[in-house]
């Protein structure tokens, strides 16, 4: 978020000759660059005379050249001071992404870098792993006793996931899926929450389609690998349906196999990215109004409008962070539950 603020600030200083459309398109571009992945964690841009100085946390670049097959590993800070590039790569300061020094595109190499999203994920991974092992130790120590300290903060959440998500949807087999459900919930949650923290970049990792794709793929595999005879029978030959209807129904059901996880993927992506865009757009109000009015007064008015709304939207994002993690987990549990359900008992009841 800060990176955007300071970039927009430089835009204001640049001049008043910019047209209105330029302001809008630049704001959109900044927002989209922020929401997208980057090879460095940009913190601020300071304008020093005509020179722009970028303050950013360097991140490791791991690049595999498609044509030469050369693997380059270096810190992104290496690309900062050299316009000619390093090992054939240079930094696009607009998007904060590594590009080919010659062509200026990203098509000539595979980028396995620790990008800001990967950095965010690793940070979340580290935090959660420490927390969970600390909790585990206290569970082992206080066998059969009331939870203490951090343990009592996490226990209600875990208990909620067991009682409200796993047990009602998965029945007797709930224990088998508990590790996945709890892992996926906390992994999404920590990434959502880290994304709300300014200054470390407000990184949009859980709102990235790649992130949600991987989690949705895990859910897809779990649902279908655990699907029983009845689940597949309902997909390929829905019982009690005339044969000719199956010609239409089976493709729809097969599509459903993909659509269910696809919806999980898109919902998380849309909600988290949408939240980030909303927050950034409201912050932009300050700079847009400042620029339109060409005075600091315009910026003040923009701030007066933007700050209360921003506070509200941020609070809502905090709620959404929990809600979306819960929704993803709940829907995964429901889909797995439907795939492992024993239909014999259900049909006898009708």
């Amino acid at each position, binding site marked *: 978020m800060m990176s955007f603020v300071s970039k927009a600030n430089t835009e204001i200083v640049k001049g008043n000759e910019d047209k209105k459309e330029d302001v809008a398109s630049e704001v959109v571009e900044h927002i989209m660059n922020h929401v997208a*992945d980057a090879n460095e964690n940009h913190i601020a841009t300071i304008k020093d005379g005509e020179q722009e100085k970028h303050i950013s946390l360097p991140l490791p670049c791991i690049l595999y050249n498609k044509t030469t097959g050369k693997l380059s590993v270096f810190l992104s800070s290496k690309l900062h001071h050299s316009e000619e590039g390093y090992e054939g790569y240079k930094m696009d300061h607009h998007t904060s992404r590594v590009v080919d020094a010659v062509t200026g595109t990203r098509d000539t190499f*595979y980028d396995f870098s620790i990008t800001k999203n990967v950095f965010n994920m690793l940070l979340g991974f580290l935090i959660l792993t420490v927390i969970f092992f600390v909790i585990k130790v206290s569970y082992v120590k206080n066998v059969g006793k009331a939870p203490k300290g951090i343990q009592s903060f996490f226990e209600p959440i875990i208990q909620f996931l067991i009682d409200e998500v796993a047990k009602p949807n998965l029945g007797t087999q709930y224990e088998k899926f508990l590790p996945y459900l709890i*892992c996926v919930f906390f*992994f999404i949650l920590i990434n959502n929450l880290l994304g709300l923290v300014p200054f470390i970049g407000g990184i949009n990792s859980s709102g990235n389609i790649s992130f949600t794709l*991987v989690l949705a793929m895990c859910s897809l595999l779990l649902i279908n690998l655990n699907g029983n005879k009845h689940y597949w029978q309902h997909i390929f030959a829905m019982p009690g349906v005339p044969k000719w209807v199956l010609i239409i129904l089976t493709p729809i059901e097969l599509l459903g196999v993909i659509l269910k996880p696809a919806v999980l993927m898109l919902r998380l992506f849309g909600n988290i990215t949408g939240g980030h865009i909303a927050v950034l757009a409201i912050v932009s109000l300050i700079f847009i109004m400042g620029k339109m009015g060409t005075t600091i007064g315009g910026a003040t008015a923009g701030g007066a409008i933007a700050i209360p709304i921003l506070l509200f939207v941020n609070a809502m994002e905090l709620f959404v962070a929990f809600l979306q993690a819960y929704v993803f987990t709940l829907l995964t549990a429901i889909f797995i539950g439907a795939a492992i359900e024993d239909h014999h008992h259900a049909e006898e009841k009708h």
Partner: protein
Amino acid sequence: MLLGFDPMSLLTPDLGLVFWTTLVFLTFWLLVGKFAIKPITKAIKDREHTISDALSAAENAKQEVQQMQSNNASLLKEAREESAKILKEAKELKDSIVTEAHNSAKDEAAKIVASAKIEIDAQKKAALAEVKNEVSKLSLEIAQKVIGKELDSSKEHQSYINSLVEKINVN
């Protein structure tokens, strides 16, 4: 490019990021899921069992105590009844012993009195007979002295005097 960016880029998964997400998430799932979450959920479940066991044990203990209390109450009641019964019996026994003793004492006294009366009567009769004999003898002597002659102690005289004496009612 009015918007200044390619909207599809947001929706295009990035190979590197997919790779890292998979790696990080699977590591997290395997590491934390297996070595932290499983023991945690097991501990929560075990504790639930412990708590429900303890609760049912407490409930049982409570019922046992209530059972014991009602047992105690009935025992106490029985003991009270028993003691009342024993007291009542003792009283009855005492009363019967007292009355019996009373009666037997009365009988004894009556017997003694009766035997004393018989004795007294016998003594009285003997004494009277003695007195009568003495009287008749004295009368004879007196008569002899009065008459100056010795009356024959014939049968005739004797019986006459006796008849006289008989006529004297001592009583």
